[in-house]
């Protein structure tokens, strides 16, 4: 009798450093059967509940043989020939999975499906015993949603999770806001690596193509112990799914077209396992032109994007795991022409306009100034060594290069000369050691050095807004996880050196070389408790001390978009943050889940850009002066999510998120806080018929309230009124032996509602997008 184990790995389960393996055990029987009389039987399980999935189907792609599971999830396929097969396992509403198994004898297979995520087609609360903190809320965008959102930017995808909003500069440039904070207070992790870009400006979108990741999730809460002080408000994670051990080339090609902006997109993914490595290649391109509001074109809002990535790993189950990852991202984005102003008189005139200046009557693919062009490279390697049952060592290292060029409307044919030209080089590494006594008891100690070099490329003809600088930022962190009295507890601490050297020159030719050395600290304490299968409670308290960053200290120049002079403040002290986040999850039945997050975030000496009373007279007129300053603020809010399924066919998903940000001295609210958002989606999934399965239609209604008018800082224009948005979508899969496609038609803003989004900087000048129909087709092989 031989005993062989075949491992399958689940797409959704790779989280942070630990891979969770789900095994399909093949237990062979004594059998002398003939070549084609083998019996394959087994069970299809739900990963989360370890019970069988009733009426799941299992079929062998190569032969077309198949079976449906009974109520206990058991199946049996008879008269199977010897050979290697792709087993296709599916369940109503689930993303079907393929397993490559060799059948030499009568075989018993146990397949596990992530039923959970498919049932909760909106968002899923992950159960990861991660190094990020046990009490933190970790939400993952379900695979089905990820498929539906294909082609959108990262921030939009992340905003399907309540509590996450998007700060925009037009439709193509968006950055995620978590619990009211964004930019250098939200960390983006691309394949485990902190994304390093120019994140100081609100028009700086993260330089990532979301389609290179198979899993996108959000940690709402301070994960600073593990990822540094930039994770103050939360983390957005892009992760790769493990690559299956399948010697054939598998993958998909996705083609889509969006009517608004006439955007054509393609995206592909190829996977293959060879003796050298398991490999995955992804690539995408997008080409779009002027977008349109309900009634007019947004001239010069086209976008080009190209991205590629290559991942090579060995078996993720190996005790010595190695991986190498490289990615490239390029984008060129036009900024609405009518949003470009010369001084505050122009700004006022532009805000007063019903339809922006320069609005063309016709559509165009051309991108003129103002525009920006961004490139990002990443190379990363990861090593994990399981020394023995208790000891694990890991080393991650990455190099990133980021180039940003911004072009303004300029005189004398200088439109093609960048007004801002920055190159950022980053090296980052994480070396850690982990002792694991049991699953509930673990100690981690890590050393995480980081080095940045940011330089202005000469020749712009403009004094740079941000000085040249280097940052040496090594960190030491430790976290301890334990189980005590039915609670999982975790405590962590991190200490960072923050050595910043800047260099800039003034108009008289005098060079300044300020040097600041500070210490950042982060402490975290949290617990998690499950009460029966229905309830889960999480809580986390994080304290963080963060030194002022380079743009807050030394920026100096004109912010063209808002006709304001921005001045750094070299006198800034540390910012202290205390965030308490709580999460309650209630799962009364298989088809129902409620989750509520409550948080309270107090920031002492919060660093932000605020207008001063000064108006500086220049030859172009007077400009308001904005300077960085510090105040005590608090952010309080909740996120709510309710999924209700009915008879495995209908589902109702309801979301709500609210945050109130205000000054603790009672002087008013904080500006640019996301307004209250509510949304409900009603969806129906139909029974499969004639090869069409997972036919799902959905109607979504979103309500966004008016933002606070009680802000301490007076905005250029009053917050726009509340608005409703109606979205529709239909998607299905068509599967016939060896041929699989998925198609999707979705209509955003069905009613072509005219609205302005408070969090879109272009709201001062123009309406937001009108109706947008997206058609996409995916070929899976």
């Amino acid at each position: 009798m031989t005993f062989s184990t075949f491992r399958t790995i689940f797409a959704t389960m790779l989280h942070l450093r630990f891979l969770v393996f789900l095994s399909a055990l093949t237990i062979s029987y004594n059998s002398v059967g003939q070549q084609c009389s083998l019996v394959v039987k087994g069970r299809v399980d739900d990963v989360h509940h370890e019970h069988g999935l009733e009426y799941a189907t299992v079929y062998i792609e190569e032969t077309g043989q198949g079976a449906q599971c009974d109520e206990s999830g058991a199946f049996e396929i008879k008269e199977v020939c010897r050979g290697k097969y792709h087993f296709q396992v599916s369940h109503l509403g689930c993303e079907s999975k393929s397993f490559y198994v060799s059948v030499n004898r009568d075989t018993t297979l146990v397949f596990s499906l992530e039923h959970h995520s498919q049932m909760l087609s909106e968002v899923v609360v992950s159960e990861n015993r991660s190094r990020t903190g046990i009490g933190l809320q970790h939400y993952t965008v379900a695979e089905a949603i990820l498929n539906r959102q294909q082609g959108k930017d990262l921030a939009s995808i992340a905003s399907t999770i309540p509590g996450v909003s998007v700060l925009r500069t037009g439709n193509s440039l968006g950055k995620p806001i978590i619990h009211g904070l964004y930019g250098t207070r939200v960390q983006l992790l691309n394949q485990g690596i902190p994304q390093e870009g120019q994140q100081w400006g609100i028009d700086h979108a993260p330089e990532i193509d979301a389609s290179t990741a198979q899993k996108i999730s959000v940690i709402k809460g301070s994960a600073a112990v593990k990822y540094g002080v930039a994770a103050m408000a939360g983390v957005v994670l892009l992760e790769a799914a493990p690559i299956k051990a399948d010697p054939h080339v598998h993958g998909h090609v996705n083609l889509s077209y969006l009517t608004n902006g006439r955007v054509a997109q393609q995206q592909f993914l190829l996977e293959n396992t060879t003796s050298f490595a398991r490999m995955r290649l992804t690539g995408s391109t997008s080409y779009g032109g002027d977008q349109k509001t309900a009634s007019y074109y947004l001239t010069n809002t086209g976008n080009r994007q190209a991205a590629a990535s290559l991942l090579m790993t060995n078996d993720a189950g190996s005790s010595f795991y190695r991986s190498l990852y490289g990615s490239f991202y390029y984008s060129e984005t036009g900024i609405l022409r009518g949003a470009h102003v010369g001084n505050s008189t122009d700004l006022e005139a532009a805000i007063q306009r019903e339809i922006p200046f320069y609005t063309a009557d016709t559509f165009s693919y051309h991108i003129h100034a103002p525009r920006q062009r961004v490139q990002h490279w990443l190379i990363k390697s990861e090593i994990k060594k399981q020394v023995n049952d208790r000891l694990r060592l890991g080393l991650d290292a990455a190099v990133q290069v980021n180039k940003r060029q911004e072009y303004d409307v300029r005189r004398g044919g200088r439109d093609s000369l960048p007004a801002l030209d920055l190159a950022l080089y980053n090296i980052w590494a994480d070396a850690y050691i982990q002792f694991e006594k049991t699953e509930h008891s673990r100690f981690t100690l890590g050393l995480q050095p980081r080095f940045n070099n940011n330089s202005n490329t000469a020749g712009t003809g403009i004094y740079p807004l941000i000085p040249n600088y280097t940052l040496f930022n090594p960190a030491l962190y430790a976290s301890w996880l334990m189980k005590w009295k039915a609670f999982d507890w975790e405590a962590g601490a991190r200490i960072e050196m923050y050595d910043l050297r800047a260099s800039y020159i003034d108009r008289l030719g005098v060079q300044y070389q300020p040097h600041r050395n500070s210490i950042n600290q982060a402490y975290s304490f949290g617990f998690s408790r499950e009460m029966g299968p229905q309830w889960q409670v999480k809580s986390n308290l994080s304290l963080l001390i963060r030194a002022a960053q380079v743009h807050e200290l030394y920026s100096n120049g004109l912010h063209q978009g808002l006709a304001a002079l921005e001045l750094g403040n070299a006198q800034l002290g540390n910012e202290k943050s205390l965030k308490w986040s709580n999460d309650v999850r209630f799962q009364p039945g298989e088809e129902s889940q409620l989750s509520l997050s409550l948080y309270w975030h107090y920031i002492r000496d919060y660093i932000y850009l605020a207008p001063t009373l000064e108006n500086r007279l220049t030859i172009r007129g007077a400009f308001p002066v904005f300077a960085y300053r510090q105040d005590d603020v608090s952010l309080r809010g909740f996120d709510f999510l309710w999924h209700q399924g009915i008879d495995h066919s209908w589902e109702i998903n309801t979301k709500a998120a609210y945050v109130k940000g205000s000054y603790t001295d009672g002087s008013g609210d904080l500006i640019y806080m996301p307004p209250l958002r509510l949304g409900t989606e009603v969806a129906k999934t139909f029974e499969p018929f004639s090869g069409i399965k997972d036919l799902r239609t959905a109607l979504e209604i979103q309500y966004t309230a008016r933002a606070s008018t009680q802000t301490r800082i007076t905005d250029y224009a009053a917050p726009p009124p509340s608005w409703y948005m109606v979205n529709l979508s239909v998607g299905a899969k068509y599967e016939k032996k060896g041929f699989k496609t998925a198609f999707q038609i979705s209509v955003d803003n069905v009613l072509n509602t005219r609205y302005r989004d408070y969090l879109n900087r272009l709201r001062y000048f123009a309406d937001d997008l009108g109706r947008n129909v997206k058609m996409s087709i995916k070929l899976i092989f």
Partner: protein
Amino acid sequence: MKFTKYTWLLFASLFIFSCDPDDPEPVNEEEVITRVTYTLTPQGGGSTVSLVFSDPDGDGGTAPVITGGNLALGKTYTGVLTLLNEAANPDEDITTEIEEEGEDHQFFFSVSSGLTDAFELAYTDADAKGNPIGLTTELTTKKAGTGTFRVTLRHQPNKTASGVKNGDITNAGGETDVEVDFPVTVL
């Protein structure tokens, strides 16, 4: 997967990296305007008036120096605008640049309440399409008063929009390259 073996090298390199930022290079601000001069020469004799706005160190630093002037009532002046960039080395005459890109530029003139109806102004130049630029003008003083006289230069205005050709800035759009106020008295 041999590459990954060398990860430690990368790790080690972090500690031997140079920590000094690149030296900033001096910026040649070719586009900046530091001096605007509006020279008003009376037709038929009289004293020439020069309205000057000068800010040689650009935005920030020392405050700009503004020179106003007194104009005689009932006279017609020939107005000539010159723009200079003293930040470039050598000084750069921006006037020619504006002239060459005439279709993309237009000057506008306006007054504060103290000078309402004090002037009549006419463009005396034109770009390739026959629309005014405003580098040369004819200014007639009609009424006595004291106030500020504003000169605005717009880049890429919509010259075909209503009123723009006649000097009305309301529908012009474009970015402001110059916006300077001069104290002026007509007596």
